[in-house]
């Protein structure tokens, strides 16, 4: 299978599930072996795409390959779901269900979320995944994060899900088009509430509270629509001045360096 496809498979199908794993894991248990076999089968199916379409030469070619690979993974996703239904409590089920959620058929997302929550809400493995899921405005991701936040009982799991959810909502607010200001404000408010929750309730969970506090400050004082904090300092000649000296003028505030 040529390099582009290997890269695509890694990125597209297995991103979160196989982060940092370039080689196949040691398949110790029977379910793990079964999962690895499924992955190998999927890789072969993706390889067939390469044989069919040949080496991509233009951006258009690459787009076609990407779309074709996406379709192959989608068509394969019911088998990952079936595997997870067979071995719901195994760690490898988390990987399988991640693929279904992020790259599988849309209609399977609900079931995949259910299985994850029912069997892995407090698992370290799911918490690890949830920590990385803040980025990207996908409804599927939001559903999972809300579900983990509701159903998990361990502080680590709840706090991580809440923080990722807050980041996710903040991103959606920032990406909202200018004619949807009310929707953006609503998302921002919810993000703020969740950042607050992590900062206050989960002070003991690693540096999640610290991250939440920083995000909270940014949201409250440095985001579009907020009054900028005043600045007091000295200019190049050592003369004191303030940002608020320029009220009544439009200000471009440029943070820069000569290096």
């Amino acid at each position, binding site marked *: 299978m040529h390099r582009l496809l290997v890269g695509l498979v890694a990125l597209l199908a297995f991103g979160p599930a196989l982060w940092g794993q370039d080689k196949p894991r040691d398949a110790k248990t029977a379910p793990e072996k079964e999962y690895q076999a499924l992955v190998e089968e999927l890789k072969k199916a993706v390889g067939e795409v390469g044989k069919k379409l040949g080496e991509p030469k233009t951006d258009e070619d690459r787009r076609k390959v990407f779309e074709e690979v996406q379709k192959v993974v989608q068509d394969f996703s019911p088998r990952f779901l079936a595997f997870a239904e067979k071995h719901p409590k195994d760690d490898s089920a988390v990987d399988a269900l991640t693929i279904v959620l992020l790259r599988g058929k849309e209609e399977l997302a609900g079931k995949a979320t259910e299985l994850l929550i029912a069997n892995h809400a407090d698992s370290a493995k799911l918490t690890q995944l949830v920590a990385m899921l803040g980025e990207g405005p996908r409804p599927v991701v939001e559903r999972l994060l809300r579900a983990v936040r509701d159903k998990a009982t361990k502080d680590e799991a709840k706090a991580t899900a809440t923080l990722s959810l807050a980041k996710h909502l903040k991103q959606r607010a920032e990406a909202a088009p200018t004619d949807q200001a009310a929707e953006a404000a609503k998302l921002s408010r919810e993000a703020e509430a969740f950042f607050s929750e992590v900062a206050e309730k989960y002070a003991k969970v690693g540096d999640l509270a610290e991250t939440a506090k920083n995000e909270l400050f940014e949201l409250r004082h440095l985001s579009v629509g907020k009054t900028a904090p005043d*600045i007091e300092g000295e200019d190049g000649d050592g003369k004191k001045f303030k940002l608020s000296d320029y009220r009544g003028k439009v200000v471009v505030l440029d943070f820069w360096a000569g290096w």
Partner: protein
Amino acid sequence: MAMVPHERSLVKKLEGKPFALIGVNFDNTRKDMQDTVEQRQINWRSFYDGREGPIGKQWRIRYLPTVYVLDAKGVIRHKDLRDRELDNAVEALVKEAERDGKPNK
């Protein structure tokens, strides 16, 4: 530093209008900053903050340049715009400031 020529012309273009370009500088020394200002003919004022200064911390600056656009009331209206987009946003806000400044709107 790539934005400097563009910013110089923006400052010149809006002379006499309710507009100011204010920098916050993170050079190693105040002298370094002054040298750069001279070399690049920088025609706006900057706070000198140094490498680990309080202003950068307060504004949670993670990368340079970071550019905020504030309206005449001090409200943040845009972040990290460049070139044409920056000009258009600034000019719209300057018009807004001039409108708000007149007694009969």
